[in-house]
């Protein structure tokens, strides 16, 4: 059987999710043995264009050029998979959605006329059909290896959609919200990180985005009981997955 051809593409992002692939120090050469890495500009200057069995997409769509590019990649790919919060929900740069883009450009650049950008940062799924989404800001290496292994053999990756809260209980951490009143998004956040933040005595800040059917209203009420004001609650839901519909709606209730 021929090795599947992989393309890795960057849209608006920090590079961290594709870096996770290069950070798989123990697995990288084995992965390179099982997959034909046809296009991955961060790793190689060979750019083998054509059809991809697997396309990994990092980043969100924030420019007219990116909006065109994703259509082209979709048309040339069998399985299109998004890596991380930017590609899956829009990422931190989606904080510009609903803001005054012209004012943002003015705040950063002396010559706004040189800047070509859309008013929004949007997830890949707003533009094309996505076959699988890997969550996280950044993605976890464990999920990435699982994704690669599953994709090579043609099965669905096992990335549970339950709450980070469940991972936290399994890890045996003391609940930071119950014991210290620390605001924590663990009850509404998608699993994948292994409940990292509570293990470091801080509240979850939601980098894996909303879990399946999250009860954000109940959590917001509990945060308020612990003394969080509306501005803090809105901010808590407005970070790396600010454009994920469940988080965005809850934030809007508190603005």
């Amino acid at each position: 059987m021929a090795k599947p051809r992989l393309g890795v593409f960057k849209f608006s992002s920090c590079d961290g999710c594709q870096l996770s692939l290069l950070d798989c120090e123990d697995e990288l050469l084995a992965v390179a043995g099982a997959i034909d890495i046809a296009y991955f500009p961060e790793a190689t200057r060979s750019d083998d264009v054509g059809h991809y069995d697997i396309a990994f997409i990092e980043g969100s769509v924030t420019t007219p050029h990116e909006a065109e590019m994703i259509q082209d990649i979709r048309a040339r790919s069998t399985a299109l998979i998004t890596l991380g919060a930017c590609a899956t929900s829009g990422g931190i740069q989606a904080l510009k959605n609903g803001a005054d883009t012209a004012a943002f450009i003015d705040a950063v650049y002396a010559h706004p006329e040189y800047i070509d950008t859309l008013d929004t940062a949007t997830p890949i799924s707003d533009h094309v059909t996505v076959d699988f989404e890997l969550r996280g800001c950044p993605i976890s290496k464990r999920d990435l290896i699982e994704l690669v292994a599953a994709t090579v053999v043609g099965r669905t990756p096992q990335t549970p959609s339950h709450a980070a809260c469940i991972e936290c209980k399994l890890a045996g951490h003391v609940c930071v919200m119950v014991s210290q009143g620390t605001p924590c998004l663990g009850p509404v956040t998608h699993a994948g990180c292994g409940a990292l933040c509570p293990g470091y005595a801080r509240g979850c800040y939601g980098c894996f985005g909303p879990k399946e059917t999250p009860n954000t209203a109940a959590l917001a009420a509990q945060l308020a009981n612990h003394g969080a004001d509306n501005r803090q609650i809105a901010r808590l839901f407005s970070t790396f997955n600010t454009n994920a519909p469940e988080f965005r709606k809850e934030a809007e209730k508190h603005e």
Partner: protein
Amino acid sequence: MNDKVIKVDMLARVEGEGAFKVVVRDGEIVGTEFRIFEPPRFFEAFLQGRDHMEAPDITARICGICPVAYQMSSVHAMEMALGITVDGPLRDLRRLLYCGEWIESHILHAAMLHAPDFLGYAGAIEMANDGHGDAVKLALEYKKAGNAIVTFVGGREIHPINVRVGGFYKVPRKTDFAPLREQLLKARDLAEKFVDWTASFTFPDKERDYTMVSLSHPDEYPMNEGRVVSSKGLDIDVTDWPAHFREEHVAHSNALQGFMVDGSSYLCGPVPRFNNAYDLLSDRAKAAAERVGLPRDNRNPYRSITVRAIEGLYAVDEALRIIDAYEEPDAPFVAYEPRAGVGMAATEAPRGLLFHRYELNDDGSIKTALIVPPTSQNQPSIEEDLQSFIGDILDQPDEDILLLCEQTIRNYDPCISCATHFLELDIDRG
């Protein structure tokens, strides 16, 4: 033939999206452009109104390769604004975390992104599959030790979660360090071999008289704090930065370009640190530099790959020193009350000096933010290198010119997501 445009529309093996163009008329280079088309993400704009405590988590997302640098510059700037000092074991733990990022970032760049230029491969995997497998495996094992430090102190290697204004959320116990210490002792041998491997390459014989800018500290190799100095006599407090440096917005780049106030270019990064602070390297790092014949006033930018390897070795030594001296602090962070204020800080990201400035409101929310990343500062110098270094090979095939241009740009380990908040080669021969 005497007129042409040499260009690359998507520079590979760099962090982010960039391009370059060299314009040749009558056999002379008349223009060089290092173009950053990485989409702008407007961090400085959406930091306005956020809480100061969010700055290390949000600014980390500017760059997945050097998030620790963003976390360090932001927390130090905030601490100045808030009037607190973080010292003792908490300060040492920050330096340890930064050593981890230097190792991870330097070895990723040197082995996976830059070495293929010297050995003639498209990438590190192609290099590994063609007789250099042992070197690539060594580098991966060595790099892993850097990531192990970041994970140990920071919680995870990309976008660490344990850094906060005032210190950390949680600090390790002295006894927790044993496995990391063992891994670093092994990595130290790998680091020595890695220096020798990079020094075995053939380097283009090219130099420029750069103005080399770095931090300077009386007792420490530049990393977390210090005055801003240059090889041409600048010596200022970091709060005087805005009076001595400026940023310009040019049409061909989504990243602002950094200049000295007199409009001249300068260089920041590993080579300036090495030249300006050689005496503060560890004995082992200095011995390695001497062994491979790397002079302390090196002006050949292609040898930056070996400078990175030396700094990697230094970072392993420094990490071990910090671990051996560590005593658990009484509290994981210094407590404070939010207040209005202005704070500035510069730290040494793996690829160079990273300046942050914030104004805070009374409630600790951010009024304004200014971030000057190293690649922005190095852009003019990159363009001048292209102008200076390829003139004598313009009669060679375009592919050879392209390769030298790319290698020249990679000397800088440019971080384009940072700078835009990277590269196409475009040689215009008319």
